[in-house]
């Protein structure tokens, strides 16, 4: 019943918003490009929900400088070509003052070239390829880079007594970056990398790859995968009888990892930027709000998008009532100590990289728990 009411309310506000055509010029528009359909649509959905929750919260408190904020959604389908087309569309629309997105590094980086030329600030909540922010001064990210994460995870594995590791990652910009950064740091700490396996995204049978990895007898396998592939890899590894520890960066974090992987993902140790069971009131408020609105658990990417929208809106607010894209960019650069649900975030003025805390988690008894 509550859902039905929500749906009606949603429909009514949408119709009202459409009917109120002339009022649109008063709105502030921020763009969101994400894979809303296609094989990555589950992540795009988290993006949309997270960002919308923040935008609605700000609108409920009167918007930014008395103006309502509208989130303009575009579906990139996880395709770099679509990403470029969307970037062109946003760039040509003078009302759009900033863009959140895209999800994957490949799409974000393709779109970034357009945003760089057009001079439109782009803030990605998830793309962690090191080259992204180097494209121009218009690119920002609200997630730690693979360079940070590689250093952190390599050290963690060494401290946990792992002497030799194999890397299993996706064959795309994300997976390449995970592999390079982890392997470089792990070797620098006298660890041995026995295999670097890159699998084509969309692979569902990893048995051949796992058999090859097992031959090197690694102490641990480090995963550069998202939760779907992660769950499959761990299930199939258990089935093949691999006796090995699993580690991963934050990319794999999602409540659905456990839902899909069941017992097989028990023991996985991972970093995360978001821990929904945290006792912090800000995090709890977000989690309950998300559950009530969407009837699902928020994953890392929902939290990331929520904070990205928050940071962008904060920059809009500081840029004043008649902000230009350049002013919004300058204010984004000055983001310091933003208190979000993914921790205290500051942007480095030179590199436009986010400085955020890491959390160590472990999957135990079917739950994510803080790792010792």
């Amino acid at each position, binding site marked *: 019943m509550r859902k039905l009411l929500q749906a009606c309310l949603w429909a009514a506000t949408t119709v009202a918003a459409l009917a109120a055509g002339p009022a649109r010029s008063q709105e502030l528009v921020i763009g969101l490009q994400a894979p809303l359909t*296609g094989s990555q649509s589950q992540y795009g959905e988290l993006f949309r929900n997270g960002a919308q929750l923040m935008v609605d919260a700000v609108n409920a408190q009167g918007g930014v400088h008395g103006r309502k904020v509208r989130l303009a959604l575009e579906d990139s389908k996880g395709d770099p070509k679509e990403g470029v087309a969307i970037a062109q569309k946003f760039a040509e629309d003078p009302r759009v003052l900033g863009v959140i997105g895209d999800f994957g590094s490949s799409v974000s980086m393709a779109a970034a070239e357009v945003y760089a030329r057009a001079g439109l600030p782009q803030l990605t909540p998830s793309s962690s390829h090191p080259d992204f922010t180097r494209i121009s001064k218009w690119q920002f990210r609200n997630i730690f880079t693979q360079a940070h994460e590689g250093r952190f995870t390599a050290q963690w594995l060494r401290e946990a007594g792992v002497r030799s590791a194999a890397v299993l990652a996706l064959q795309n910009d994300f997976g390449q970056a995970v592999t390079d950064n982890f392997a470089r740091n792990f070797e620098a700490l006298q660890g041995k990398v026995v295999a670097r396996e890159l699998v084509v995204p969309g692979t569902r049978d990893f*048995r*051949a790859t796992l058999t090859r990895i*097992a031959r090197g007898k690694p102490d641990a396998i480090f995963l550069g995968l998202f939760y*779907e592939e992660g769950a499959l890899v761990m299930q199939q590894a258990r089935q093949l*009888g691999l006796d090995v520890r699993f580690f991963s960066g934050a990319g794999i974090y999602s409540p659905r990892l456990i839902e899909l992987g069941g017992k097989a993902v028990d023991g996985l140790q991972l970093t995360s930027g978001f821990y929904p069971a945290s006792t912090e009131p800000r995090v709890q408020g977000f989690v309950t709000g998300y559950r009530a609105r969407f009837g699902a658990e928020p994953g890392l990417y929902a939290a990331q998008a929520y904070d990205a929208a928050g940071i962008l809106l904060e920059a809009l607010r500081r840029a004043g009532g008649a902000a230009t894209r350049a002013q919004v960019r300058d204010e984004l650069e000055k983001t310091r100590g933003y208190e979000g649900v993914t921790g205290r975030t500051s942007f480095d003025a030179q590199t436009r990289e986010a400085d955020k805390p890491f959390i160590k988690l472990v999957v135990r008894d079917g739950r994510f728990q803080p790792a010792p």
Partner: protein
Amino acid sequence: MDLLQQVANGLGLGFVYALIAIGLTLIFGVLNVVNFAHGEVYTLGAFAGVALVTLAPLPLPVLLAAACLAGAAAGWALERAAFRPLRRFRDEASQKSRLLRESTLLSSLALSIVVKEALDLWFGGAMLPIPPQVLLQSPIRLGPVVLTDGLLLIVACSVGALLFLQWVLRRTATGLSIRAVASNRLGAQHTGVDIDRTVVMTFVLGSALGGLGGLLVGLYDGSVFPGMGFNPGVKAFIAMVMGGLTSLPGAVLCALLLGVSEAVATDLVGSGWKEVVPYLLLLVTLWLFPRGLFGGAKERV
């Protein structure tokens, strides 16, 4: 020893492709048109099985039967929606028309996109959670090699399906009419074969196997999602082309060859090369045997 394990892994992949290739080849043989929606029939079978087991903890045979039924129903509907309307032109010129063949090809492609996007909207693009008790991943140790119950079941079903189809084709009246339509549709029509009924039977048979395959693979890999039909569908298509387009045993053998080559290539060169191998094999085959490995004497390419 690792090589043996890789061959086992590869046979797993190969039999998965084979299950799809059988239905695809059967339908191609009769209509002379590639059914692009076959991958979606496979997906629907998997979704039907998983949706059912999420509602009630039914035993595996019931689920497999349900996947078969869902596949058969999807095949029947597919034939109605995408193929029959384009068969209403009965004259000889239309039946040989290239344009009409291409239209049929596109209508099945269109329907496959509609089905995939509908599943995507309804269930979301993510993988469905599968209750662990129905997963076909229990290891079975055979000396140095680890197999699974899923693999054995897939092998049994593929071989069973192949033998069953051979029996249907050689020993039953329906099989006779399928073979008649495949060899010369106009001739069959003139001798009183009910073309529509035969085509429907072909679709139902091929799609039932497709649906069954979808669920088996979903439970074996632990992965059911709207886009699951695409990749194996392409590999099955390659197997069909390599096998000579209309030969069922040819398609199965080539599917196995593809699977084993992928696994062995993963071991020898690395995971990144796995996807290149089937296409290389296809190129080499078409270069040396333009009519496929089991294409027979009929001029096709």
